């Protein structure tokens, strides 16, 4: 049969169904399910299938319609009270509920139109005197149970706490000077060591350093010497021994001399 449906956008399957019921001028309580189902299927057949979500919703309704159409052909089921169940009943309920929503939205749209002329303020406009107002202090509440004795106890506690903070013995010691490790001195030391050993491991060099600072400075000195080409480093494997090799012992000795001179001058 001819499809009396112009292809237009519908909000959903119920919207389409309502439309079909309206244009067919049929009673919502007595839907000619066969006709409507055919028209519905014909419509979704021509529908833009790009939006899978929308399409699936229309397909679910199509399945429901086909299910109802089948059940209409079978002998009617009966409910607990022996009354025949109309297979369309559930669909009618849904359509009615939807129709109600449509009616309510039309109502809301009208209300929105009427309300549109009223303008509300969104900001408060409080005078400065109000904003700056400080409530008077309720001293009775503020002081509460505190008395002069409380203040006295608190003060004594503070003084005691303060005394405890200062260690009576250690506070008599002078300040301990922080030992500065001179990079140049360390460079001289490393040069001397390398001249004496020629080839050594990084680990061995570090074993002779007393503090963390010394280790760090020694490491920096090694990096510096590698950069200037005095030594070469070799490591066979990750975390393995780092071998330090002097590339030019004579040059190193020269540098050692000049370095020491610089220091003494």
């Amino acid at each position, binding site marked *: 049969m001819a499809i009396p449906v112009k292809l237009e956008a519908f*909000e*959903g*399957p*119920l*919207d389409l169904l*309502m*439309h079909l019921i*309206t244009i067919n*001028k049929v*009673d*919502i*309580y007595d839907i000619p399910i066969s006709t409507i189902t055919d028209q519905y299927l014909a419509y979704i057949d021509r529908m833009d299938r790009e939006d899978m*979500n*929308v399409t699936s*919703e229309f397909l679910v*309704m199509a399945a429901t319609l086909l299910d109802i159409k089948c059940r209409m052909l079978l002998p009617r089921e009966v409910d607990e009270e022996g009354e025949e169940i109309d297979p369309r009943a559930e669909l009618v309920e*849904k359509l*009615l*509920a*939807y*129709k*109600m*929503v*449509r*009616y*309510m*939205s*039309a*109502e*809301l*749209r009208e*209300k*929105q139109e*009427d*309300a*549109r*002329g*009223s*303008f*509300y*303020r*969104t*900001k*408060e*406009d*409080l*005078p400065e005197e*109000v904003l700056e107002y400080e409530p008077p202090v309720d001293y009775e509440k503020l002081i509460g149970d505190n008395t002069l004795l409380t203040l006295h106890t608190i003060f004594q506690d503070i003084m005691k706490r303060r005394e405890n903070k200062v260690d009576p013995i250690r506070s008599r010691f002078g300040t301990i000077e922080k030992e500065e490790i001179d990079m140049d001195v360390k460079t001289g030391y490393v040069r001397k060591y390398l001249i004496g050993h020629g080839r050594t491991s990084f680990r061995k060099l570090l074993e002779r350093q007393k503090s963390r600072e010394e280790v760090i400075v020694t490491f920096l000195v090694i990096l510096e010497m590698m950069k200037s080409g005095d030594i070469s480093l070799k490591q066979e494997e990750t975390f393995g021994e780092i071998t330090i090799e002097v590339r030019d012992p004579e040059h190193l000795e020269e540098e050692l001399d000049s370095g020491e001179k610089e220091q003494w001058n």
Partner: protein
Amino acid sequence: MELKKAIAAAEAILFAMGSSVRIQDLSKALEMSEKDTVRVIAGLQAKYEQQDSGITVTQLEDAVQLCTKSEYYEYLIRIASVPKKIVLSDALLESLAIVAYKQPVTKAEIAAIRGVNCDSSIDRLLSFGLIEELGRKDAPGRPILFGTTEQFLRSFGVKSIEELPSLNDQQIREFKEEAEEEASANLSKITM
């Protein structure tokens, strides 16, 4: 406090606060009972009506707020930058209607009535501030429950959700009867 003075005080408060003021808070500020406060509000409203004022007081559930009377809108738009009217599509309006009438309601319930997924329309209604989350339903998955906001009341000029044409049994019956007769006319109007 004398009624006249209380009305003026309420007016001062509502004007300065700008946004809606709960009747409860107003009654505290005026140092009178909520019942008397409601009377004061009514007095203020009457004053605005009698004197052809440009402003009026509207009730929004259990709060009140001053606003301009809609008949002066034409003057306002000549000078004030009135917030743009939110244009609601049919889809948004349908979802909003369901929230308004069925609140508190979940996304799934709204989708079941409309027969389509409503995620995006719910998101848009939330972003417009017309609906809000009310909490979670004590059901599997603890879905979020939605309800309308004060902004909804303002936008649609309703004092309270109760004021919406209610859907009691009587009305539903009437509606069903009507449905068959009027049907087409009403619908063709909406779907156009």
